[in-house]
């Protein structure tokens, strides 16, 4: 075998000082006591969060529920090009395209149906990467509960951006 630098971690036989439990037990108790005291009186260093009263602050890259963004006039930016549906590894995006009558460029399309099955979705963000229009982005919304499978299939109305974009809880999107 190629000579590799190794470090031996063997500890050999239990030395007498450890045979009598006392030393290690006291040392162990000091550790737990230190944690206890600090968390009780000093600066709290606990990783647990009292969810749902307290919520974790996630980064702006968190891949949560999708948002279909809109233009200034409130129409969807999506041009129904099917790229997101093609890139989706879970095949959970269903799009039906239609002609956009009031498009600036003629023959531009828009989605008549745009559905994501959130129970199939693996929240990988590939749809966001695939979209050439920044029409689909993700929010930090990750608490989702449904009472039926059908309810988990969300359409344009549920996904559409609600107000101005900076008031959404923005998560994963290009550049972030």
């Amino acid at each position, binding site marked *: 075998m190629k000579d590799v630098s*190794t470090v031996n*971690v063997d500890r050999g036989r*239990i030395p007498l000082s*450890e045979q009598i439990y006392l030393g290690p037990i006291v*040392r*162990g108790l000091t550790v737990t006591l230190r944690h206890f005291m600090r968390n009780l009186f000093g600066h709290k260093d606990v990783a647990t969060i009292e969810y749902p009263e307290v919520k974790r602050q996630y980064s702006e890259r*968190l891949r949560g529920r999708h948002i279909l963004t809109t233009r200034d006039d409130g129409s969807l930016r999506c041009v129904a090009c099917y790229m997101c549906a093609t890139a989706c590894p879970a095949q959970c995006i269903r799009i039906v395209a239609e002609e956009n009558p009031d498009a600036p460029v003629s023959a531009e399309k828009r989605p008549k149906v745009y559905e994501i099955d959130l129970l199939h979705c693996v929240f990988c963000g590939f749809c966001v990467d695939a979209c050439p229009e920044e029409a689909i982005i993700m929010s930090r919304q990750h608490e989702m509960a449904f009472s039926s499978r059908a309810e988990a299939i969300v359409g344009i109305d549920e996904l559409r951006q609600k107000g101005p974009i900076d008031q959404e809880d923005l998560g994963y999107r290009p550049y972030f």
Partner: protein
Amino acid sequence: MTASRTETTMLPQPQVDLLPKEGVVAVEHGVDGHTVLTVEREHLLDVLKSLKETPGLDCNLLADICGVDYPERDARFDVVYHLGSLEHGHRFRVKVPVTEDDATVPSAYGLWKAADWFEREAYDMFGIRFDGHPNLKRILTHEAFHGHALRKDYDPSQRWLLTEENLMTPKWSTGEQKNDDHLDTQVLNLGPSHPATHGTLRTVARLDGEYITEAECEIGYLHRCFEKMSETHGWEQVIPYTDRLNYCSSMINGVGYALTVENLLGVEVPPRAQVVRVILSEFSRIMDHAVCLGANLVDLGALTNFWYFFQIREEIYGLLESCAGGRLTVSYARIGGLAHDVPLDFEEHVRSLLARIPKFIDDVDKLVTTNKIFRDRTEDVGTISGEEALAWGWTGPCLRASGIPYDVRKAYPYSGYEQYDFDVPVASTGDTYARYLVRMEEMRQSLRIIEQAIDNLPPGPVITDDHHVALPPKEKVYTEMESLIWHFKLIFDGIKVPAGEAYGFTEGANGELGYYIVSDGTGHPYRIKVRPPCFAIYQAFPHMLEGSLVPDAIAILGSLNIIAGELDR
């Protein structure tokens, strides 16, 4: 600091004149640096034996056995063996073509015990029979399953219902049995759903009092057809699937997969991406070890350590999430680099973790390492010698705990591991305590690697600019026609990996994580076989149990760190 995979493709080569000749139809040199032998079935055992026993070849590690289906060929199946020599470093791929009507090859179990479960898997998935195998039956699917799932003509939409009468029952577990004192022994099921199995693992054991006299494992409860599903997806789309192999360290899986595909494509990964991959992989390794040790200690009744370790894990998840956008399933690696650059505060974040993590490791160290109760509980429990561990195909921390310092990062450096100064922890006793010690030290060594990596984080892009492989940057897609066309082409056609095959292996948290990929030049993988490290490790488990106490079984199981996601795929 340029070569990424090319480093590994320059594996040491075996001496040509030592190679077996008889029955060898072809000798090729694979793009992955393996020596590829195509062998006639009649001579397979002789060839394997001479690869193992000829001095100078000494292939002591059987890494993997799998099947590949080529329905249009006369000899429909290839049985593929991956062998390696820890001493000389060379690697072999041995391929044996067999026809569908006579899909039988001799079992390699007599040469390497590692063949046990790998052969069962090839039997299960392809219907290839292994003559002389001691217990050839299905492994990932159940007894009521019809057909062989990885054959190309198997329709994956079929469903097979397992009823109680088809449950796996070892022959010895039925009927009464008496021990030497004419007292009844009893059969006990450990798992599949038991808090101490940390996943869905079932072990059937025969108990004589508190002692286990016989045991057999059943796996496959978490089988999600990863390999079958990847055949219907694009190369890139497999990445989210790899997250779900060893889900305790998903980053490492994605990187390993990407490296293998990059090898076949021949693309270079930018230096910055390599360093970030290393940093996040090492953090993932720390997390994985922390979970393993934390859980193992809980099983032994030491709950506090679990909290200290889980705090580390929580904080590392914070880092991963700030980079990748996901905590558990990061999907951060891409073929050719990374999904996007790290956030601006990355360096600061890494340094603050570097400052914090050692404290928690030290705390656990103080609580446990010298504690006599813990030592008594784990020393001489689940002992396995280095030789035997290697025969079973063990790699990773478990093998190093038995005294064999095999670490892919050292033996076949990738992603620039050769530039980092770190040591490989080894122990000699091979028991549960040794596995604990090795993992503890590995966490510290990983911190050392991260420290060096973060000091030398180069600027620059994080993904290749080859637009046959990677999407062009978004701002260009929005503004430039050419980039939009590249973007469009890549999304709709997928990455076209040239026809060929490669076996890529990296050091996963549990050992050698291998991907054997076969491409036929279309946009989809033709075959992806994962060599999960804990699959090889777990097959030795029932044998380790014989003669041990029931509570020891729990201690041993925890120290092996069996992750059902990668075990069952």
